[in-house]
């Protein structure tokens, strides 16, 4: 079967039955692309659902089932971790919204199946941020990014605390107070999202976003993000969410209205545009046209975005790259910062990250090596040195 190897994984995600025609060399590439895109577990689930596992060569199947073991375990751990977070925070009597992957698990979404999770994201009211942080700190969640600059970056400009890491379990928790930074150009209201959120059964004060907001959050996150190594995975999430929610025919009308209300039309357009192009998500043509009319880019911008995103949304694997992919990824990284911060903040920030941060890191590494450890001091004392 002739498939452009750059789009091998995407083609199989669109037409899973096509695996029957793959040669061993193509399986080799498919597994590698899926691994780098963190979609091995997902691919396994899709093959299992369509009863195609018997058509997978043994050598490839081992990797798929290994990937599936990891993602099943992740899903278990996510549920446990959400429980732990809830145990700590419910006494504060504030609404906590679970976002992204963990929300898919809690609300039993098809997008949760076979998914890798790297951390948990929650949204809390801005006014309660200090109490939340204190309660978490008392229960073992420690701030990362201890560099003063980074702490200021997150707290002053971004929409979240610096990531918290649990001291014992090493799990990562991102606490947001909005879905976009205050310095960003778009301003979706977290209060509006809270007003329509859906309670999680069995957990007091725990919510997930309503379907339209769940999609809009995912689209905004993907098309505002600079690091697109998981771009295809996020697009797969969006495709799964859209397919699931659009079984309710009124969903399309609601999401277009909600996107306008929350000032998130542009990222929604990109999501619908690229999901239908890359994954052939069945989005009605008139919906895309309507969204484009309300807040889509002009033709030149769209051409540029196509040049960038059709490369950036591929797996970060050598078989998916051409000579411009590196440049495209770098430009998307700069774009994401441009979307997050105005130029007068952005330029000093990029300068700092490019030059000052590596110097500080090297200094810290040197200090760590020179600082005497307890063992060394005890050994010195013993030998009388």
């Amino acid at each position, binding site marked *: 079967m002739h498939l452009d190897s750059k789009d091998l994984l995407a083609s199989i995600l669109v037409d899973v039955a096509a695996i029957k025609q793959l040669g*061993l060399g193509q399986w080799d590439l498919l597994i590698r692309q899926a691994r*780098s895109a963190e979609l091995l577990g997902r691919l396994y689930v899709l093959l299992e659902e369509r009863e195609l596992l018997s058509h997978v*060569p043994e050598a*490839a199947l081992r*990797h798929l089932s290994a990937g599936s073991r*990891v993602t099943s375990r992740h899903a*278990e751990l996510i549920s446990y971790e959400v429980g732990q977070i809830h145990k700590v925070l419910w006494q504060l009597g504030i609404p906590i919204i679970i976002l992204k992957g963990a929300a898919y698990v809690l609300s039993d979404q098809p997008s949760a199946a076979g998914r890798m999770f790297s951390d948990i994201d929650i949204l809390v009211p801005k006014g309660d941020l200090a109490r939340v942080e204190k309660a978490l700190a008392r229960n073992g969640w420690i701030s990362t990014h201890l560099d003063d600059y980074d702490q200021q970056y997150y707290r002053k400009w971004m929409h979240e605390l610096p990531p918290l890491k649990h001291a014992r379990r090493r799990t990562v928790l991102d606490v947001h107070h909005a879905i976009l930074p205050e310095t960003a150009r778009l301003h979706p209201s977290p209060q509006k999202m809270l007003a329509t959120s859906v309670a999680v059964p069995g957990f007091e004060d725990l919510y997930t976003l309503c379907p339209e907001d769940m999609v809009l959050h995912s689209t905004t996150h993907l098309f505002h993000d600079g690091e697109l190594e998981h771009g295809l995975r996020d697009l797969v999430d969006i495709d799964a969410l859209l397919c699931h929610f659009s079984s309710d025919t009124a969903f399309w009308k609601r999401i277009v209205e909600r996107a306008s209300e929350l000032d998130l039309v542009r990222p929604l357009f990109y999501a619908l545009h690229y999901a239908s192009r890359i994954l052939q998500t069945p989005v009605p043509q008139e919906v895309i046209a309507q969204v484009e009319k309300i807040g889509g880019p002009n033709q030149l911008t769209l051409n540029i975005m196509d040049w960038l995103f059709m490369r950036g949304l591929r797996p970060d*694997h050598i078989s998916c790259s051409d000579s411009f992919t590196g440049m495209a990824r770098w430009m998307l990284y700069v774009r994401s910062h441009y979307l997050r911060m105005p130029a007068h903040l952005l330029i000093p920030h990029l300068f700092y990250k490019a030059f000052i941060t590596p110097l500080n890191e090297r200094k810290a590494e040197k200090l760590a090596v020179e600082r005497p450890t307890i063992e060394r001091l005890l050994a010195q004392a013993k030998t009388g040195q």
Partner: protein
Amino acid sequence: MKVSEYSPEEFIRQVRRDGVLLHIGPFSVRVRSSLEDVAAGIHLHYEDYVVSDQEFADFHVTVEPSRGFRKWFHPQVNFIFDGYTPFKPLPRDQAFAMFEWGLNWCISSFAQDYFLLHAAVVEKNGFAAVLPAPPGAGKSTLCAGLVSRGWRLLSDELTLIPVNEPRQVIPVPRPISLKNASIDVMRDFAPGAVIGPIVRDTTKGTVAHMRAPAESVLRGCETARLKWIVFPQYKPASPTILAPRPKTRSFMEIATQSFNFSILGETGFGILKQVISDCDCCDFIYSDLDEAIATFDSLADGQQDICAA
């Protein structure tokens, strides 16, 4: 085709150009490197292993010099797994060792259809003895000694127990990593063994690799039945002591020494329970390698049952 059928020069050229696909135990590894000593190290240590032109490889790895000024100033090398660099660079002379450590990382990170232990495992008469130990306990020396005296090497570092068959161990015979004093010990103990170049100043001290015995490689598809779990500890001038170890403590220690006990979740717990139930668990203290091997031989011959709890 075997690695030994290439001349060293041909092999170096091939590894530099397209890489070679090595079959190591249940895994296929495509390795490429522009570095002569990596290719030469593989040619030396993997001479009995099969090379093929199979199009599917479990792991695609490269060992390459760092770019930029690090190419000439205190040169460094990187281990790259399919475009991803999991480690910080190491000094240039550790290139072959880095290939070995990198391969350990590949197996312990991705082979999740096995219960993976940080332990050596050897076999005699169809039965496997697993030797779990933290670094410095003398497990590699003991392992190298045993396989120089008739025991088969399944692995010196990674014990693979299939998730669906927890009574078995899968061989992944590879060069045995020797450290510091044990390099000279093995030179004396097994003068016929092939030991590669010595590399100093690694994070583990001075390191060299001993080639796996040819028979261990040839029998690399033969599984073994789990029978003993022996926790070794080298203690200078100590008599040889083999004593039963409570299964509860053995369980906890193995769980700690496992790479993926946590990932396997409840399945992992069930597997470990089965393994501990099936095996005789003991502590083993030794200082004399000949005596140590004699003890193991008597275990294998069924003459000694002191290990049974």
